């Protein structure tokens, strides 16, 4: 109930706006060609970028997943950790860091001379930025599935005379579809909804023009809404379009990937054999690692070299620390709500797989993950301020918005873990006389504790780094990432860099906690 009322309903509430206020949309959007053009351009840019980013992620992520799962070498754990590193960096900091690294930046920023300093097109910059933060998601979801595919299949193919490449392509890849779907949807959704990093990157680069993506439009307009109430209709329109298109895309992607049969059966023995030997596999692995370093790791952490090389400016930590504290409190409250309400739902979904209702819930849980957070935030803001059911404190609204998109992370994680636990453990506990509650607490809970914590930390860092939803729900809110956006817009680049580093360190500590917890679980 909580889930439906507080998460799903507000998320899609904005759709009703299309019906009740169609007149306003017609007047301010459809009859205004310049406005319509702007919106359609921004949205199509969003989708194009998300599409291109996803393709790049697959091409570069697949070899990397392969290396991580199928190869044994020294330093594998190290590589494994490296891939997760960008996950610890809030996208706001990532956006700043990558932009300094890739883009041609204004003089006043004084980027180090060894930055790439080459990208002038905002379109390209945003693609590069989105690859940086979605790549780890792709590699993670691909390797999660790859681990589960029995390597014997491939070996069997090779005993039958298929070269390593043929076997991987004709046997393992077709078994891979499910993982590909998850990876694609995750990357696509992340790229589509990213706001903070995108805004910052655009603000950092020299001459971004009036380039905008769907979510950045929402963020900007919400900000101007007070002075220009006419923007309400376009805002709603953008949100509606984003929500509908992303949901549509989710369905289409699922169908296309599961149903369309690629002609994978053919085998080209000679060329594939050639590519399985000698220099080719090594080059491929080398390129995969190179990609990781140049396009993911360097941009993620370039901020450190920037701050180290720039001339220091005195920085008044006060307001930033306030905003950081504010972010922290919100993230903490959000995480607590997620856990206390997410775990029961996860249990319900995982234990009643067969039923109709859990199945529907299972799909619904994913909705906030797919919908761009800026659109989600705007929708939520309109819903709650319009209802007068709860007092509309800023903090409360932000918390509700953050719960909406972090809640699925906890539910996904926990439901997945519960499904993997053999129910006979709990049944055994029951036959030994334990009450259901006892059986859960003493048997199931210790087994899924790790995944609950993992979900919690994911939710926490996500909430800490979120910009789009925060801005869209309460324009005047000052969380840490929003504060950084402001700093950059006012060209206080050095202080923004420092603030980013503080944010990175805080997130990194949370990340370490995650590692510690999951490792502890494994050794037990």
């Amino acid at each position, binding site marked *: 109930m909580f889930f439906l009322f507080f998460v799903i309903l507000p998320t899609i509430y904005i759709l009703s706006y299309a019906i009740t206020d169609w007149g306003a949309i017609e007047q301010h959007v459809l009859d205004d060609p310049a406005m319509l053009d702007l919106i359609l351009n921004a949205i199509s840019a969003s989708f194009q970028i998300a599409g291109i980013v996803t393709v790049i992620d697959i091409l570069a992520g697949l070899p990397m997943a392969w290396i991580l799962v199928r190869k044994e070498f020294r330093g594998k754990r190290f590589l494994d950790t490296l891939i997760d590193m960008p996950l610890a960096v809030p996208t706001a900091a990532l956006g700043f860091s990558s932009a300094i690294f890739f883009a041609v930046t204004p003089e006043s920023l004084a980027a180090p001379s060894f930055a790439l300093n080459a990208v002038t097109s905002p379109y390209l910059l945003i693609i590069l930025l989105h690859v940086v933060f979605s790549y780890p998601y792709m590699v993670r979801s691909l390797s999660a599935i790859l681990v589960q595919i029995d390597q*014997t299949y491939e*070996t069997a193919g090779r005993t039958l005379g298929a070269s390593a490449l043929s076997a991987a392509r004709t046997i393992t890849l077709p078994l891979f579809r499910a993982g590909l779907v998850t990876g694609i949807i995750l990357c696509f959704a992340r790229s589509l909804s990213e706001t903070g990093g995108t805004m910052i990157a655009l603000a950092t680069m020299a001459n971004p023009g009036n380039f905008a993506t769907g979510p950045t439009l929402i963020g900007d307009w919400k900000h101007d809404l007070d002075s220009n109430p006419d923007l309400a209709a376009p805002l709603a329109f953008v949100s509606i379009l984003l929500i509908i298109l992303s949901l549509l895309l989710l369905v289409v992607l699922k169908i296309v990937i599961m149903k369309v049969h690629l002609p994978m059966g053919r085998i080209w023995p000679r060329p594939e054999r050639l590519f399985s030997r000698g220099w080719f596999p090594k080059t491929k692995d080398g390129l995969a690692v190179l990609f990781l370093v140049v396009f993911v790791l360097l941009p993620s952490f370039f901020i450190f070299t920037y701050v180290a090389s720039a001339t220091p400016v005195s920085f008044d930590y006060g307001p930033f620390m306030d905003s950081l504290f504010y972010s922290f409190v919100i993230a903490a409250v959000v995480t607590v709500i997620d856990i206390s309400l997410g775990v029961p739902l996860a249990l319900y979904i995982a234990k009643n797989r067969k039923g109709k209702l859990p199945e529907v819930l299972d799909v619904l849980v994913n909705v906030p993950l797919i919908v761009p957070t800026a659109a989600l935030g705007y929708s939520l803001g309109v819903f709650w301020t319009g209802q007068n059911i709860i007092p509309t404190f800023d903090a409360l609204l932000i918390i509700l918005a953050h719960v909406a998109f972090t809640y699925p992370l906890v539910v996904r994680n926990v439901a997945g873990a519960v499904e993997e636990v053999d129910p006979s453990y709990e049944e055994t506990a029951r036959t030994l006389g334990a009450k259901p509650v006892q059986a859960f607490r003493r048997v199931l809970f210790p087994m899924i504790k790790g995944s609950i914590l993992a979900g919690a930390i994911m939710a926490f860092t996500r909430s800490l780094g979120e910009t789009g939803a925060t801005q869209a729900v309460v324009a005047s809110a000052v969380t840490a990432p929003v504060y950084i956006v402001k700093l950059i817009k006012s060209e206080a680049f050095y202080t923004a860099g420092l603030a980013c580093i503080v944010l990175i360190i805080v997130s990194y500590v949370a990340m370490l906690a995650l590692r510690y917890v999951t490792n502890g679980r494994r050794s037990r």
Partner: protein
Amino acid sequence: MVEVKLVGLGKRYGPVTAVHKVDLTVRDKEYVTILGPSGCGKTTLIRMIAGIIEPTEGKVFIDGKDMTGVPIEDRYIGYVFQNIALFPHLTVQDNVSYGPRARDMPREDQMRISKRFLDMVKLLDKMGMLPGELCGGEQQKASLARALSSGSKLLLLDEPLSALDSRVRVDLRYELRRLAKELGLTTIHVTHDQEEAQSVSDRIVLMRAGTVVETGTPEELYTRPKRIFTANFIGETNLLDGWVLEIKDGVSVIELRNGGKVKVNQADRPVGDAVVISVRPEFMFPADEGMRATVTSITYMGTYWRVTANTEDEEEVGFDTATLDENLLTIGKEVYLAVNPKTAVLYPRPNDGVQEAIKLE
């Protein structure tokens, strides 16, 4: 002609030695089983032959050619996996024609060959199904057809029957041997089931803790095992401690620790030597004299009864009887047990004890 020769083949994983310097030759068209308890290195061994695992020392020769550095796909082997490993997304026929396809044969040949081998394992009518729709036995038959369809004359079977129900296991066992012999294949079959090994092989290679214990025909290993470990692992046996009392006309008289005296047609241990004798349950029987024991249990086994009894030094022995004379054999009754001297085997007593010698690892 396919002959497999292993020279000093070994595999170490860090400090752990999985296989220790194995030398073995498998002759053309021979059906050899590698038998041993789990963890003895037999699967590592067959995987090194196939090229799935790189050995850390020694070499594999197939037909006299050194296979070092030759990838799996160029070794031209048929390999059947314990977990079956039919490609779940391909139909049975597509599974079987995968080998010809991977080797770039013309399309008609792919069809013809896959049908031929599916016919051979009697699965022609199921060739359009997905592997998940077949039962376990059929799945393993299909995977056998798949392995054979590559046209290889060397068949490697890695615990092919372990995942199957017991009845199917027995049926398929004979099927395996029949096909191997019909097609003139050189076969290496890995198993932990000594009964299976005995019923299919021309020769058994018995392994323990990474080394080969003994090699011989099933009959040799059952009737005249050279090691105590073999006697105990293949079939069942009673191992009894004793001393050589005297030797006359090639017959040793052994005084057992339990007080009994038995004769053994073997005279290679000097008088006074500490020995162990191995007597199979079917070659021990109640008699007027021999070792004294008290019957503790009688179990009906279908075609015979298995009787266990405690000797005077509290050691349990077992023997079989085809007819149960209830006046003679009831629980708690005392009996005298004699041994057929032709069938008992004599071993020097191992320094660190019999238990150490028969330990599985």
